[in-house]
């Protein structure tokens, strides 16, 4: 039965890849982008490994610490994405009603959904984790056993968060009221972010960039030494992997045992609990919104205020009847108004705002720490400025991916309304773009100004950084809307799942490449501009002007092209 259930999913994926509607641009585009990204990631990591090895006598320890940080980040990301995937696959999936009505053994259903969630949330980590960890092996000139061990470690490592997420979801659906499910899922995601943040602060990564900041070598070695025993799967993975990387270490059988026995144990415990409690939790998720909790009452009151602004329906209609003859309803304005209203009334979007607030805090607090690194060879002042620009750009990418990319998909089955109206698809996409951009602009600007002012209260740096981020925000947001239209998921009501989909990944990779291109292109110009401003330098070279021009032209072209391509792609789907 399990095989049959998995086959159905495999056939669906195969069908969507074969389909003219779904798979036309997918494979080649994804292959090209992921190749470029993989090469960049590999080369970047290799550079970092070589730089670290040059720091005597703690180079190897630093590498070990960097691997630890990487695995902790993977663990945090996996936990977050698994929680989203588990809710989508176990509780919010369209085919669940049908499957539950069939004589399918609960263990088979659990296992098929477990494998689906595992695949959905983990393949990205494997794709991105493998090049980085392979680069570590190459840099360290590791033996072939390291690469074999890498595969052996990653497989159980990605299975642990899926099992934990399935248990969390089971608990939440059985204990909380139905209307709070998605909020709870995102709250859990937020918690995992906070845990991740605490762990990273505990590891103090910025200290690795500035070895001189330690009082003594002993203190440094103490910080860099990895605990032999830990409750974190990321540590088990590191302890299992590093003996094949550093030949002097003994193989850690205990960690390997934990790494394999834990996911198996969680899997069986979770399967056993699902036999008993899954149906109860599932039924509760299907119940409508009810109850008179404070939150529900507040929400209803706010809704009433927003819907009846301007008096009763009769009063509002009378006011409209008195409007001048030439006063018309404007399509773009109504498209934006509609999206804003839907966004503010969707509770799952509110919870996402919490995640953003957490992301911003994590970054800003960490950025303050990164100031320490600005005196090192790794960064330097201009380096830190550009690092900050890149990270702010990545936050804009993450936000656009979460809030703008799913825009067209969330039209869902109501999309017919727009298609049959006398409004062009380009205009619809522009409406989505302009409607959702203010919060992204706000966050981008808030981040760049706050971070710059935190460490460098220089107005020129802040203004140029702010302008560049503003420009990139508009471009990246347009890319998100356009590519969201190229890879729509009209039958997926879960915005978080859409934001973690295949198309979203293509958007993320391509927009990161665009940001890096823009920042690298404009680097020479800004470096010379700052030299003119602060060091009475002669002027800016033509090459730097060309670089700036290219750095600005590419994002503009790509964003314009994305909107056009998105509209064309939607048209082709009709």
């Amino acid at each position, binding site marked *: 039965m399990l095989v049959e259930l998995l086959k159905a999913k495999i056939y669906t994926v195969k069908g969507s890849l074969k389909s003219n509607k779904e798979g036309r641009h997918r494979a080649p585009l994804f292959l090209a982008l992921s190749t470029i990204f993989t090469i960049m990631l590999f080369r970047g990591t290799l550079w970092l490994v070589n730089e670290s090895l040059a720091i005597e006598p703690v180079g190897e320890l630093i590498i070990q610490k960097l691997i630890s940080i990487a695995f902790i980040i993977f663990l945090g990301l996996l936990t977050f994405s698994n929680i989203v995937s588990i809710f989508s696959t176990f509780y919010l999936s369209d085919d669940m009603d049908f499957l539950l009505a069939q004589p399918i053994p609960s263990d088979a259903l659990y296992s098929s959904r477990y494998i689906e969630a595992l695949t959905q949330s983990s393949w990205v980590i494997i794709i991105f984790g493998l090049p980085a960890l392979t680069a570590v092996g190459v840099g360290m000139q590791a033996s072939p056993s390291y690469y074999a061990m890498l595969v052996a470690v990653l497989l159980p490592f990605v299975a642990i968060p899926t099992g934990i997420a399935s248990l969390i979801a089971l608990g939440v659906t059985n204990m909380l009221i139905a209307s709070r499910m998605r909020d709870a899922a995102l709250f859990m995601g937020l918690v995992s972010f906070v845990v991740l943040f605490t762990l990273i602060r505990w590891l103090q990564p910025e200290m690795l960039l500035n070895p001189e900041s330690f009082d003594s070598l002993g203190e440094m070695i103490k910080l860099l030494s990895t605990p032999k025993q830990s409750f974190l799967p990321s540590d088990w993975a590191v302890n299992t992997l590093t003996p094949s990387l550093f030949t002097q270490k003994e193989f850690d059988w205990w960690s390997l045992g934990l790494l394999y026995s834990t996911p198996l144990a969680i899997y069986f415990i979770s399967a056993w609990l699902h036999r008993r409690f899954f149906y109860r939790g599932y039924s509760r998720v299907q119940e409508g919104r009810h109850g008179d909790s404070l939150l529900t009452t507040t929400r209803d009151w706010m809704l009433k205020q927003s819907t009846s602004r301007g008096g009763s329906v009769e009063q509002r209609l009378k006011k409209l009847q008195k409007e001048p003859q030439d006063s018309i309803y404007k399509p773009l304005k109504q498209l934006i108004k*509609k999206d804003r*209203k*839907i966004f503010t009334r969707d509770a799952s979007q509110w919870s996402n705002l919490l995640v953003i607030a957490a992301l911003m805090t994590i970054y800003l607090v960490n950025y303050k720490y990164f100031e320490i690194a600005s005196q090192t060879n790794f960064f330097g002042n201009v380096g830190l400025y550009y690092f900050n620009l890149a990270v702010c750009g990545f936050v804009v990418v993450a936000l656009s991916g979460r809030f703008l990319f799913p825009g067209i998909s969330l039209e*869902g089955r*109501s999309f*017919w*309304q727009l298609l049959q109206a*006398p409004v062009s698809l380009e205009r619809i996409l522009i409406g989505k773009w302009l409607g959702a951009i203010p919060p992204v602009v706000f966050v981008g600007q808030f981040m760049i100004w706050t971070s710059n002012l935190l460490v460098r209260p220089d107005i020129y740096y802040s203004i140029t950084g702010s302008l560049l981020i503003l420009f990139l925000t508009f471009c990246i947001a347009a890319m998100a809307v356009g590519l969201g239209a190229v890879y729509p998921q009209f039958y997926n009501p879960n915005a978080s799942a859409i934001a973690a989909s295949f198309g979203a990944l293509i958007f993320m990779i391509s927009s990161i490449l665009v940001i890096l291109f823009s920042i690298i292109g404009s680097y020479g110009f800004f470096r010379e501009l700052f030299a003119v401003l602060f060091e009475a330098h002669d002027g800016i070279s033509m090459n730097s002007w060309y670089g700036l021009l290219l750095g600005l032209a590419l994002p503009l072209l790509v964003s314009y092209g994305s909107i056009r391509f998105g509209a064309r792609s939607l048209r082709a789907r*009709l």
Partner: protein
Amino acid sequence: MTTSQASLLQISKLNKQYGKFTAVREINLDVDPHQVFGILGPNGAGKTTTLRMITGLIQPTAGTILIDGHDLHKDPMKAKAITGFIPDRPYVYDKLTAFEYLEFIAGLYSLKKSKAADRMHELLHTFHLHEWADSLIESFSHGMKQRLVFAGALLPKPKLLVVDEPMVGLDPKGHKLIKELFVKLTRDEGMTILLSTHTMEVAEQVCSQIAIVNHGQIIAQGSMNDLRMSTGESEGTLEQVFLKLTEEQEEERAAKVAERFGQDPLPATHNAE
């Protein structure tokens, strides 16, 4: 735009193919203004596909669609501006109120605010939604949503109203309301209505012209009397006429397939809707 030709809707050689499967084959249709034109056919006949092509939701593989003289392919904005559509299932924005939904539709059609307000007032009362105008659509029953979609489609006063299975999910009171409304819209507002339905009673009572579609083709077309004459069922109901026509075609197809392959053919199972 006022055209010199009599038909409000002209369809010629309309085709829709999904891979090797032909959902709609060479459909030609002229619909005169101010009438209710019914499209009937069994499941999978291609009715919904045809209607969705007329409203611009699906692109035809070949053929032309002229709405009041505007080519839907070449001048889609003008053609869509005078067309309203009511799908069989009322998927609308659940997080908007009925009033906001109507304002949104007014925006899509760039309506004048004062005129839109008059129309909204009228439609909210016609469809008994005025009391619920400030309620979120997510709290509406299926029937209420369907009535709201009707109100939205009628708001811009389209010249052509395309309706797919209008009676799905409506109670008997709703049936009566819609039937009376169709008559009123064609008579008083000069609207042209193209509707597909399974409900023979509706087609018989409100349609002045009927086309019967099977396997993506029009197999018969005309008034009720024309159809009766063509089948020899001079006293027959529309249901009897419909069954006779579609069964005859099935037999004809089966014979053709048998002749070609020299064996008993399997019944067609493709579903175009």
